């Protein structure tokens, strides 16, 4: 292991670090919105949309991200949709993450006690008010642990972006190894890169989970 090589490689890994963070951020935000939407549609049993959401969730959950990325990046241009590698990556992450987020939100919404819904009805809340004041606030806090697990999962999934040559952390490490045989140095920086993102995030999410649990239970 050469420390000078490590030092020299820091800038390029720095770039990869920020790119990984950026793509994860957009992917997770998009996946959360998509997942929330899908879980809503299913919770309130909206006709037609419910079917579509169900099909999407099955398709998304039961295909590997690798294949989803191949489709978006290599097959879509055949039908006239040409996207950059990074856009393809983000869309792939949203497509995959949406179903996982939907499952997390659905779990939370279904976890809200039936008596809570009934006592909301008993004071005359409309369905919409019931969702807004009773089901959502409690359901969202119940979803937090599963959402947190998904956030970490999705960040780690960005390593697969390497197959469509996005210079994120894993791709950069493999590149450095392939070009210069800086195997030890690159793997070290790769691990450090992910650790800097994931460990503080994990701590933050655990803290959030504890807060959410306190808000949701204790009745």
């Amino acid at each position: 292991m050469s420390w000078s090589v490590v030092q020299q490689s820091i800038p390029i890994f720095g770039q990869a670090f920020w790119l990984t963070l950026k793509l994860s951020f957009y992917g997770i935000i998009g996946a959360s919105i998509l997942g929330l939407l899908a879980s809503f549609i299913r919770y309130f049993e909206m006709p037609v949309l419910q079917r579509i959401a169900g099909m999407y969730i099955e398709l998304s959950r039961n295909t590997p991200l690798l294949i989803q990325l191949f489709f978006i990046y290599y097959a879509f241009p055949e039908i006239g949709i040409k996207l950059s590698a990074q856009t393809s990556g983000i869309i792939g992450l949203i497509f995959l993450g949406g179903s996982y987020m939907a499952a997390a939100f659905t779990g939370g919404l279904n976890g809200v006690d039936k008596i809570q819904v009934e006592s909301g009805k008993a004071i005359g809340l409309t369905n919409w008010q019931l969702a807004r004041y009773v089901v959502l606030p409690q359901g969202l806090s119940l979803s937090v642990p599963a959402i947190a697990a998904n956030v970490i999962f999705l960040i780690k999934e960005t390593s697969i972006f390497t197959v469509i040559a996005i210079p994120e952390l894993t791709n950069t490490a493999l590149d450095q190894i392939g070009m210069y045989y800086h195997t030890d140095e690159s793997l070290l920086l790769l691990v450090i890169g992910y650790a800097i993102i994931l460990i503080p995030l994990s701590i933050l999410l655990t803290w959030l989970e504890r807060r959410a649990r306190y808000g949701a239970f204790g009745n």
Partner: protein
Amino acid sequence: MPDKLLTVSHLNKSYGKKPVLHDINLEVEKASVTVLLGPSGSGKSTLIRCLNGLEDFQSGQIDFMDQTIKPGFKKWQPIRQHIGMVFQSYDLFPNRTVLDNILLGPLKVQKRDKHEATEQAMQLLKEVQLADYANVYPRQLSGGQKQRIAIVRALALKPEFMLFDEVTASLDPEMVRGVLEVMLQLAHQKMTMLVVTHEMNFAQQIADQVLFLEAGKIVEASSGQTFFTQPKTERAQEFLNSMAF
């Protein structure tokens, strides 16, 4: 003739093929207290839940105020503002303070003035001796306090009719009294009430009318005093004996 608030006629309900309520007929007069008694599983809770639409029924009808309700009725939401209900399990919203629990209905459902609704809520809290707890979360309250708040939350909508579904059944014995006192106080204020309870002394004190349910049927309907002193049916007699200690 005293005014009727609620009439149930020939109401039948079943879960699949299993009948749970059979040909229920009852009348509730304004400002009266009706107590539903009967062994567990006799359909008391199901019946009370039919009266504010938490359960549907298969045949018969309910007349409440000027509304006729038939099976499959969907427009319960406006009616529920006139019917307060308190459940057995603590049902306050854990993510809202006591005051926010109480104000949710008046502000969002009835769109009342915040100042006026808050004043009324505080007055009601004072009547149940919990005025100091307005800004506390439900988890900080005892079971008895929660049930008194749940009563206040229902009363805040200024209902015509109150349903109580075994509201003291999950309370520690020393908490029961406070809740029952609030209910007695309500009865003195001429609130129309329908009460499911296993507290026999309380039932005897508060009931104008007793309906005794067994296996989904009303097997005895009498005035409060008659039921406890001269039960007509053998089954009611057995039931009372089993409750006496």
